[in-house]
């Protein structure tokens, strides 16, 4: 294990920022909304550190301001040492650089994580926040919705609908732990959750959703116009677990991975990178327009 970590450090040392820039497949525009997506990350193990080091390297060339965590932020015990070993130390470079982490709760997370300041949950199990804007140029009017998919109470659903229908949001991006669509053979899609959330997402113009729980990377073919990402392999991996569902646009279940995203105007660019630095998926999603006065009717896309 020690040798693997040393090898990784050596590899990272050999990668120049210029080489990284060549590999970056996002526009990297000034003023755009840039963020990281990780899931199922909190093991404190060597795999988490290898991925975290790779993320830190990517951050040098693609300075995302914040990260969203799609749950299972800390596996096992949750004492002060665990927060240090499973979160603060692996992501120290990012934290020191001022990257803010916004967490959603996974099934391995104590709900009291919401009081941990570095997870920016403001003491709430579900919450919303707007991506920080740089300057007057609105390259990304983006609002995120962190949901507690472990406990989707009627109150949470009511809250979500109220927030989704609020005016002023361009991109509306929910993120939570359990995927509504997945080709995973271990868990698969959470159909009960889908029955509740999907109608709201469709009605209120959601274009992209991020989830975890499955320990691999998968981008689903758009379902009812919405692109679903599964990003649950930032520290855990279930090799060969993506089954033949016919829904997979791109899957990666042979290595650890994370996702970087950039939003500029009505375009969302994404790039999934594995622990070794190789790009495993990239592309762009265009935001569909919502016809004024009828949020369920969409054009474009």
């Amino acid at each position: 294990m020690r040798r693997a970590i040393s090898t990784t450090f050596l590899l990272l040392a050999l990668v120049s920022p210029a080489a990284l820039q060549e590999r970056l497949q996002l526009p990297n525009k000034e003023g755009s909304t840039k963020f990281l997506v990780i899931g199922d990350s909190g093991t404190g193990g060597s795999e988490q550190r290898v991925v975290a080091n790779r993320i830190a390297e990517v951050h040098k060339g693609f300075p995302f301001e914040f990260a969203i965590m799609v749950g299972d932020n800390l596996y096992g015990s949750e004492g002060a040492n665990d927060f240090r070993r499973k979160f603060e130390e692996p992501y120290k470079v990012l934290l020191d650089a001022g990257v803010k982490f916004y967490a959603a709760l996974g099934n391995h997370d104590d709900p009291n994580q919401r009081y941990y300041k570095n997870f920016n949950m403001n003491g709430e199990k579900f919450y919303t926040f707007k991506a920080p804007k740089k300057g007057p140029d609105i390259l990304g009017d983006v609002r995120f919705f962190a949901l507690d998919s472990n406990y989707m109470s009627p109150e949470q659903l009511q809250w979500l609908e109220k927030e989704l229908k609020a005016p002023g949001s361009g991109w509306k991006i929910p993120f939570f732990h359990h995927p509504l669509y997945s080709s995973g053979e271990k868990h698969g899609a959470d159909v009960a959750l889908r029955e509740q959330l999907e109608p709201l997402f469709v009605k209120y113009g959601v274009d992209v959703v991020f989830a975890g729980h499955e320990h691999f990377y998968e981008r689903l073919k758009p379902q009812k116009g919405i692109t679903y990402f599964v990003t649950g392999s930032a520290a855990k991996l279930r090799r060969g677990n993506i089954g033949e569902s016919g829904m997979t646009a791109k899957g990666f279940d042979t290595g650890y991975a994370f996702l970087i995203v950039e939003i500029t105007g009505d375009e969302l660019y994404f790039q999934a990178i594995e622990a070794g630095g190789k790009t495993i998926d990239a592309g762009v999603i265009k935001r569909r327009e919502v016809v004024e006065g009828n949020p369920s009717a969409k054009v474009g896309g």
Partner: protein
Amino acid sequence: MLGRFSCAVSLLLSSMVLPAACSSESHASRTSEPAAAQSAAPKTNPDAELLVDFKKRIDDYMALHNKLEKQAPPLKETKDPAKIKASQETLAMKIREARKDARQGDIFTPEIRQLLRRLMYPEVKGREGRETKAAITEESHELKAVTLKVNARYPDDAPLMTVPPNILAALPKLPEDLEYRFVSRTMILLDTHANLIVDFVPNAIQ
């Protein structure tokens, strides 16, 4: 689904005299009474009585919880996770002391257990209920560390099973610091601040 939830809540909030529309499941457990007595008194819904009783037991527990919470380090946003843990453990200790004689069934009485099973049954029965049941029991093999005992700590290394939204919609609403959770087919009442099992319903889903 949400309609049934609203119905259950309205049972709690309204008087004990209920319109028939909300009481489709209410007659099954009611023993018959003499015709004269039935005509003399207004009809009462036995489920409503149970829900009121349940709410009272929950309120009593929360009154104790809130009182003891004031004696524990406050649970507020902090960069120091040790403070979160200290608040959790202190409250758990105080609740255990205060409820040292608590037993299974103090909140989920046999009658309330039956009612809750009945409320959940439509969501887990038959082919349509398979997904819900599967979601509840999906990772049961990871729950061996959970001790099903009143006042037992819910272990850190055991995942919390997802409670499907249709199940939550079917059950009476709980205050913020209490949650319904499942350990295989047993439903527990979890105090999330103290991380304690308050009570449980064995074989909650059939």
